[in-house]
């Protein structure tokens, strides 16, 4: 195996055609994921994080298309591939877990067969061998009494168990990378804890890589090694999870950290991010966050602000990132 990244997204652009115009949903996003690494992708609704995932696995909505960039999986560019070619890659190389397991699973097919289907199609397993593999996977993801549950339908499962079934399906063909789109948002905190532990353990045991999309910063802290923050279709900050979340270098990340209530630090009042997310049909000039940013200066409105590398293996798109550290020091939080 090479030591380079498993997945490398270079300057990805996704445009969605709507009646209101062309939405620049993903605008020049570059990401690298190493083998066995869990990368978090955070941002608010409409920031383009889910679109990035869907572009990677080739399931964009009908109005959306990739207008530029490369998606290199093991050195092979996925962008020019046909659906038939992508079908051969989805499963054995790359798979996905969705937020709503109830709508992602087939309601009229027994869960055992759904887990076995992938190995039969992709790896040519016989019916009995595939069933054996499905039982093994059900055990691995912690579904109790797999022999009995094999013949059950999704509606007979609780939300947490359905998500375990989704994970078993995603794992069935031993992919190199699993894309997770808010897999725990619909779950209770106790069940979320179980699923996060499971994903974390799988990631460490089998060396599978994860891209974990969520809006919940503490969840990212729990499961990811590195994190990339998206705003208005662009990456605004990237780096090691603890660095970025505890000591942000972009005012948007800082805003996310300061606006969320925390069980550990009770503050008198939360600091909301003023304004609302930008229109991606006609985004603001310069830095897209500048209309909502307390640190904005004249130079922020002039030209685009791509990610720049900072010392310590992290990057930021902010021209005045030093202000974040000052604001944090004034708050008395950070570096927990």
């Amino acid at each position, binding site marked *: 195996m090479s030591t380079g990244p498993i997945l490398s997204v270079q300057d990805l652009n996704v445009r969605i055609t709507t009646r209101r115009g062309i939405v620049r949903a993903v605008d020049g996003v570059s990401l690298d994921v190493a083998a066995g690494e*869990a990368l978090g992708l955070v941002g*608010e*609704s409409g920031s383009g994080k889910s679109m990035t995932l869907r572009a990677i696995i080739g399931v964009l909505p009908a109005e959306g298309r990739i207008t530029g960039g490369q998606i290199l999986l093991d050195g092979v560019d996925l962008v020019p591939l046909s659906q038939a070619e992508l079908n051969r890659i989805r499963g054995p190389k790359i798979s996905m877990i969705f937020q709503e397991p109830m709508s992602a699973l087939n309601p009229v097919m027994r869960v055992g067969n759904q887990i076995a289907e992938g190995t039969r199609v992709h790896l040519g397993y016989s019916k009995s061998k595939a069933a054996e593999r499905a039982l093994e996977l059900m*055990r*691995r993801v*912690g*579904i*109790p*009494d797999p022999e009995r549950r094999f013949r059950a339908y999704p509606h007979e499962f*609780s939300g*947490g*168990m359905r998500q*375990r079934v989704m994970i078993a399906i995603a794992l069935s063909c031993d992919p190199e990378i699993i894309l997770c789109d808010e897999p725990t948002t619909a779950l*209770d*905190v*106790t*069940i*979320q*804890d*179980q699923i*996060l*532990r*499971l994903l*974390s*353990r799988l*990631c*460490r045991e089998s060396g599978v890589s994860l891209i974990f999309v969520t*809006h*919940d*910063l*503490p*969840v990212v*802290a*729990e*499961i*990811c*090694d590195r994190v990339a923050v998206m705003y208005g279709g662009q990456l605004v900050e990237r780096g090691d*999870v*603890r660095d970025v*979340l*505890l000591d942000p270098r972009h005012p948007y990340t800082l*805003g*996310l*950290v300061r*606006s*969320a*209530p*925390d*069980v*550990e630090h*009770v*503050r008198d*009042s*939360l*600091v*909301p*991010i003023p304004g*609302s997310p930008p229109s991606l049909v006609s985004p603001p000039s310069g830095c897209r966050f500048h209309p909502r940013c307390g640190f904005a200066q004249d130079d922020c409105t002039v030209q685009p602000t791509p990610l720049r590398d900072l010392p310590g293996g992290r990057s930021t798109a902010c021209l005045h990132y030093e202000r974040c550290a000052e604001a944090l020091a004034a708050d008395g939080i950070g570096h*927990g």
Partner: protein
Amino acid sequence: MADADAAVGTGPLLSASDIAVHFPVGSQLAARARHHERMLRAVDGVDMELDRGDALALVGESGSGKSTLALALAGLRPVDRGQVSFDGRVLPKHRSRADLRRIQMVFQDPYSSLNPRLTVGSMLRELVRVHHVVPGGEADEYCARLLTLVGLGQDAMRAYPRQFSGGQRQRVAIARALALRPDVLVADEPVSALDVSVQATILNLLRDLRGELGLTLLLISHNLAVVRHLCDRVAVMYLGRIVETGSADQLFGNPQHPYTRGLLAAIPRLSDSAAGRAQGGPAVVGDPPSALRIPTGCRFRTRCPIAQARCETEDPALRTGPGEPGHQVACHFAFTGAPENGAAGANVPAELSAEMPAEVPVNPDGRA
């Protein structure tokens, strides 16, 4: 009017005793043939008190009955057992309009809880007119003041809900609840449907309103960070019962029920690390049992790391801890220094961690 002659008591503003709400499930025809209805016991004997000016949070997993309890307290759902008292007076089964006015609700989803065909102004004016909150001539000015109070401009009067963002809609919903000058505001997951950065504005608003208007707040939430931010008292619900209640400091600082400990341990924290989560067992094992088949004895015992034989037969009652006034726990081993969750959970091999007892004896009649 009824609220005029209600004596202002020194007791709790709102209190509930032995409240139960049951839902019949399955075919009613089959139930009649069997002479026995299957009952889902959503709320199963809850006692609680809410003092004037307090902010109490009800927390628990989905299906624990917290929303049903809130609806029952607000008089929006009949109770099957027990009674609700307001200001020392037992409220009748069918509440008068004046009684309903005293407790108002804000719902989770501001997209479905506002009438899409009424402007905000006409919605508020209608409320004010029907309940005679202010004389007819002052209605417009009153509504405008309400909107200012929740941080919306005067233009909001003529706008329809669809013209607002999620956070602004939730402000409208709060204005609607406040229009009747309630004593108690019940907020059922008021921020769960909103984006993170917007949640903060609504949480700050609720907190400010509490200070400005002296509102009594009942917050229902599964998010313990939100609870910690807004409330000074917390009640933890599990399968239709309150299993632990106390001040926020008691509950977060010295949780006694194994379920509360599990809930707290399950919260993701910014300072956690991925490596830490991969090791060790989950904070609470398994799924909550169905409210149709509530376990005998202590209802948490099927997932409890410290369950003993007596938990299967004896239903623990809420009892107050020594030296901790107001801190009540329904566990046989509370306040005794029993082994902590973490110690027991860490020994469970990860492979078995999700395993639950396959068959659990249940008491189908509901009463222990």
